[in-house]
Each structure stands twice: as structure tokens, then as C-alpha cells.
């Protein structure tokens, strides 16, 4: 059952001198309920733009995106998003940030607090409720961002290179935690990343995009279900790594500099 349908979507930016830049060129993709899909590709392939369009932040130049058969026109709490540089509200505490979406929904204070606290505990930040973001490490800030997103109970999680700004250790830890969260809640996740290995480790399907203009080059099934063991995951990741790396390298080699 398709949850997200990306139907003939293009994104074209007007440039000076009456030229245009085609960031994304007629992309078609369907994502089913509960799937974990990664999108990888070289810089400039439009993967983030595609994600932003699913989120409703950026309009499609042509084609449309449908979520549950309803066309996407603007952002909403049903599609939560997390960004590479966290985008936490620096003037609000951890609690203030996590509660934010609940406040917008008009939920009463006591219940809001409880819900927010539960998510803060879930991302292992208990005790930091009244801390401001600028005192937290990158990894901690990203956890807050994740908690903030989850508190609204979205059915779709959009993650825009969420671990790109973190060091290798933290990245590894958070990858495992995301996988755990997904196994627990089985939400639909669309995950954009540079990191081939990360994509293989986390997802069931990996979409490889080419750049300039952005198109889907190939889609690869990792064949790993939500209950796969660590060993199976590691082995599959190693197998697919070579295949995918070639794709990415070939894509990069095929790029010609913008005239």
C-alpha cells in the first residue's frame, strides 16, 4: 500500500540571463507504509530538495506528491522533519523545543509535559529538560530534534542528512538508535544521506540519484527486514557497499561541470 506517491515531479529554478536550473527531472517513486527508504547520491542530485518537497516546504514545478492520496501543498505534523544542523529553537529549552508541536496543537499543559517528558526520556536526555540547546553537544541536539519531531506522532519521518554534522562515534550510536526506534514504531522513514554504508545499514530500499539534472538512477533492495540480525545486516552491508559505491562513483564520473 503506497503511503507516499511521487508522481512525475520536477523542480526547476530560474537563473539570471533567462536560464534555468533543473534540479529534479521527472522523478517517480512510491514508498509504502512502514518502509525505511534511503536516498543517496552525489552533491547536487536533488535528494534534499526531493525530501523538502515531500515535506511541503518547496513546491513542485511540475508533477505532484501525494500522501495517502492527498496532494501535498504545505508542511504539517503528519510529516515530521529533522535537519542536518538540528534547527532547534535556541531561545527555548529542551523541553520547550520538544513541547513545541504539542503547544501548536493546543494540548493542555499537564498532558503536554508528560508527553514531552516521555520522548525526552526515550532519546536518553532525561535531566536536560531545562537546558538551552547551545549547551548541548551536536549529538544531544539532534536527539532533541528527533524527540521534537516524534512528539507530534507523525506517520512519516523525513530525515535530511541528520547525522552529517556529527562525529563518527556519535553517528554510529544514533544510527543504531534510529534503527531501534523504527523497529519499535514501524513508521515510514525517508532518509537522505551521503553515507552509503549508513543507507544500507538502515534501510530496506536504497534509491540512488544522479545529479544535474536530478533523476533516479537505480533502486536497490537491501533485502533486510525489520527483524534482521546484526550479523546479517553487516554481511549484506558489505556485499552491497561495493555495488553501491560503484554506482555513486560512476555517477560522479558522469557529471559534467555546469557549462
Amino acid at each position, binding site marked *: 500500500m503506497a503511503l507516499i506517491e511521487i508522481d512525475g515531479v520536477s523542480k526547476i529554478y530560474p537563473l539570471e540571463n*533567462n*536560464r*534555468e*536550473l*533543473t534540479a529534479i527531472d521527472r522523478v517517480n517513486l512510491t514508498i509504502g507504509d512502514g518502509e525505511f527508504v534511503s536516498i543517496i547520491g552525489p552533491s547536487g542530485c536533488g535528494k534534499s530538495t526531493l525530501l523538502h518537497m515531500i515535506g511541503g516546504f518547496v513546491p513542485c514545478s511540475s508533477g505532484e506528491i501525494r500522501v495517502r492520496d492527498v496532494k501535498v501543498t504545505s508542511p504539517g505534523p503528519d510529516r515530521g522533519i529533522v535537519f542536518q544542523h538540528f534547527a532547534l529553537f535556541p531561545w527555548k529549552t529542551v523541553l520547550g523545543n520538544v513541547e513545541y508541536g504539542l503547544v501548536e496543537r493546543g494540548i493542555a499543559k499537564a498532558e503536554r509535559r508528560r508527553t514531552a517528558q516521555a520522548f525526552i526520556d526515550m532519546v536518553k536526555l532525561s535531566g536536560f529538560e531545562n537546558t538551552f540547546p547551545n549547551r548541548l553537544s551536536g549529538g544531544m541536539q539532534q536527539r532533541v530534534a528527533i524527540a521534537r519531531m516524534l512528539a507530534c506522532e507523525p506517520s512519516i519521518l523525513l530525515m535530511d542528512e541528520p547525522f552529517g554534522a556529527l562525529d563518527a562515534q556519535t553517528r554510529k550510536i544514533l544510527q543504531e538508535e534510529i534503527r531501534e526506534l523504527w523497529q519499535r514504531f514501524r513508521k515510514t522513514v525517508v532518509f537522505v544521506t551521503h553515507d552509503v554504508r549508513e543507507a544500507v545499514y538502515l534501510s530496506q530500499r536504497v534509491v540512488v540519484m544522479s545529479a*544535474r*539534472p536530478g533523476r533516479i538512477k537505480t533502486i536497490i533492495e537491501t533485502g533486510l527486514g525489520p527483524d534482521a540480525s546484526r550479523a546479517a545486516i553487516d554481511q549484506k552491508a558489505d556485499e552491497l557497499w561495493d555495488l553501491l559505491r560503484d554506482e555513486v562513483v560512476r555517477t560522479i564520473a558522469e557529471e559534467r561541470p*555546469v*557549462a
Partner: protein
Amino acid sequence: MAGTMKPKSQFRWLRRGIERNASIVVVLVLWELTTRTGVFNNFLLPPLSNVLWRGGIDILNGELPRHAFATGMRAFIGFGLAAIVGVAAGTLMSMSGAVRRIMEPLVSVAFPIPKIAFMPIFILWFGLDDLSKTMMIAFTCVVPIVSATFLGTTTVDRYFLWSARNLGTSRLRLFWKVVIPAAAPQIISGLQVAFPLALIIAVVTEMLTGGDGLGGYMIRAVRFAQSDKVFAGLLATLFTGLFFIQSFAFLRAKLLVWHAESVVPAGA
């Protein structure tokens, strides 16, 4: 494949040009219309055409250019003085702890106070002519310049310094070869803040002493109830200010051609 090229109509460019200047034109047109049709009191708001006429006359008889030049000259000299003294003081502050300890509180206090309040004292000391005005301009401008210079010279990226030391630069030459060039953007930033101040203060001091210069021109116009002259003076001052800003931006671009920020920031 490179970004596709589609011929878009030229009208987009034209439309943007109109968008960017429409409200100015609208204001000017409204000005002329509302005054000509008597909506606004012609004394308080003389028609644009009258103002331009009066301005034209005073340009041709040399009055406005003379005053604009006087104001500009004053501002320029005062600013130049402030720049030399300010940069020198700022660098001294970063080189000598003693100088710094003496000057830092002075700069800190001098920054927020309305230095124009000292004008009567300056007039007492320096008379009503050019000297007091130029001194006041210099006095007002020197503070942000000292501050920016000090900041720039003390926060030079230490990796610059280490690289230079590593390549054999002696401590003294280090200053000239590395610190000053590295601090240049900050210094020029401070100069950029002080520059408009020079013109503001020049105009004010001229209004206070009622002599020559655009400030004097305008205040006399008010006293003699010549409203078209007031507006003509205002426009002349606007253009003088514009000239000032453009020449500064030009100089800055030339000096900082190697720096990433050599493009004049929007709204500078």
C-alpha cells in the same frame, strides 16, 4: 547535462527593474500631484517641481555646490583625521598593555555618549569657524575607528601568526606583514561605520553655527521661511551623502580586492 537553457522573455528583467523602483516613482508622482492640486499646503510641502526649480537655480548660481563642497570637505577632513589618529591609537592599544589599560575605559565610555553635547565646549575652545566643526567630526568618528582597529588587530587568527613565525618573520615585521593586513577588513568595517557619522555631524555642526555648508543653508532656509530651499537643501544633502557612500564603497572594493567580502553588503 548542464542546466537546461530556455529562452525566457526579457520582460522578467524589465518587470524586476520596475518592481525595484516603483515605490520611489510613486512617491515622487504623488508628491507633485498632491501639492499641485492643493491637497497639501504648498508652503509646508512645496511641489516637487518648485523644489527642483529652486535647486536648479541654486546649483547654477553656485550656491548649492559651494555649500555641498564645504560640508563634504569638512566631513572628509574630520574623517581623515579620525582615521589616522584612530588606526594609530587602535594599533598602539594592541601593542602596548599600558596604552590599552588607559584607553580602553575611555573608548568604552566615549562610545555611547552623545558627543555632540560637547559642541558648545568646542565652540568655546575653538571658535565658531571650521576648527570646532572639524574637531567635533573627528572626535565623533575616532571612537568607532579605534574600537574596530583594536578589535581587528587583537583577534588576528593565530594560525596566520604561527605560519608567518614558522616561515621566519621576526616579531616586529610580523606586525606589518601579517597583523595589519589581517586586521584590514575589521578596520575598514570600523571606517565604514564612522564615515556616515562624519556627514551627519558635519551637517549638525553647520546648523548650530549657521555658517556655510548644507546645514547652514537649510537652517537659514527655515529661519527665512523658504520651504522650497529647505527641500532643495535636503535633496542636495541626500546626493552628497550618496556620493560619499559610493566613493567609500569604491575605495573599499579596491583595497580589499583579495577579501571575500569585497562586495558592498546590501544596504551598507
